């Protein structure tokens, strides 16, 4: 898996702001699909924005 930065914003506004700063970032909900694809190298986001804390 490629290296990536991880952020865990606590509000929706922070999550959207982080995505605007890093256009190739991905939102992480649970990971069922995204983490699997990242393991296989299909998805290579530079940053994961974990939105489970702002739901």
């Amino acid at each position, binding site marked *: *898996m490629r*290296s*990536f*930065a*991880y952020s*865990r914003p606590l509000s929706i506004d922070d999550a959207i702001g982080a995505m605007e700063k890093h256009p190739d970032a991905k939102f*992480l909900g*649970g*990971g*069922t699909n995204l*983490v*699997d694809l990242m*393991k296989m190298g299909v998805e290579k986001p530079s940053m*994961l924005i*974990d939105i*489970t804390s702002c739901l």
Partner: protein
Amino acid sequence: MHIRYRTKQVTGQFRATATGKAGGDATLGERSLRDFCNVKLSWSEFPARKRPSAQAHLGLRGRETQEPTPRSIGYGRAPRFLMDRKHSQHDHNPLTRRKFIGTAATVSALAITAPPLEAQSPDHLVSRPQDAANARLCSLSINGVRHELSVDPRVTLLDMLREHLHLTGTKKGCDHGQCGACTVLVNGERILSCLSLAVSQDGHKVTTIEGLSHGQSLHPMQAAFLEHDGFQCGFCTPGQICSAVAVLEEIRQGAPSAVTLDVSHSTPIDLTEDEVRERLSGNICRCGAYPNIVASVLSVYRRERS
């Protein structure tokens, strides 16, 4: 004119590709090289590794043509011992036990140091100095014990449990979320630890199969699996048990499944065999111990109700 050629041993003909001075490529297909460029090629002009054997050139079937070189498995060259096996029938290069073990050990050692496998080795990931800047501090409660860990964001919860904390009760089956062997409980709900990043579980309460029992006293679900022979090889069992424990909690909370007839919450959900099979459908058992697994779960459910 530069001429590249590939030999075709059976017919003794050559596939010729010519590159003219103008820079264009012309592939002429199969024809005699001599007809094509009208030159006499001496035998020494062939690169040694592409030189057809004399027997093949003469249309004779030598040993090389009877026994083609083994194709590689996956990509890369076939392991040496596989290639040697071809010749062992002729006692030319016999494959001995010692050679096999020695080669296998070498292949394993190479595999461990190969860069693509780094992502599979969380210990390696966590301890690599260049990743230290990327590591995050996580605080998790695992089986009632608070852990403060510095982990790389790439490490999954499963790898952290197994490789970092050495809680190897949770099994790695497919590592793609398809088999359910890695099921653990996070805040009482079942999740697939192989698809969950360890850093995303910061602050959560994780319970693995080791945390279900209290000392020597087993969790009722563990005892039921023993009582009803709910396993054969046992590899899927930790996941099955964690999943089953969560299923009973889901039933208590009235969470419907795909086979629940009444989803109006007007009556409590009854855990039938169909319900158990549906709710545990994410946990695959290749031994096929399903009847006994269902019996185990139902026995715990009935005992709790009575």
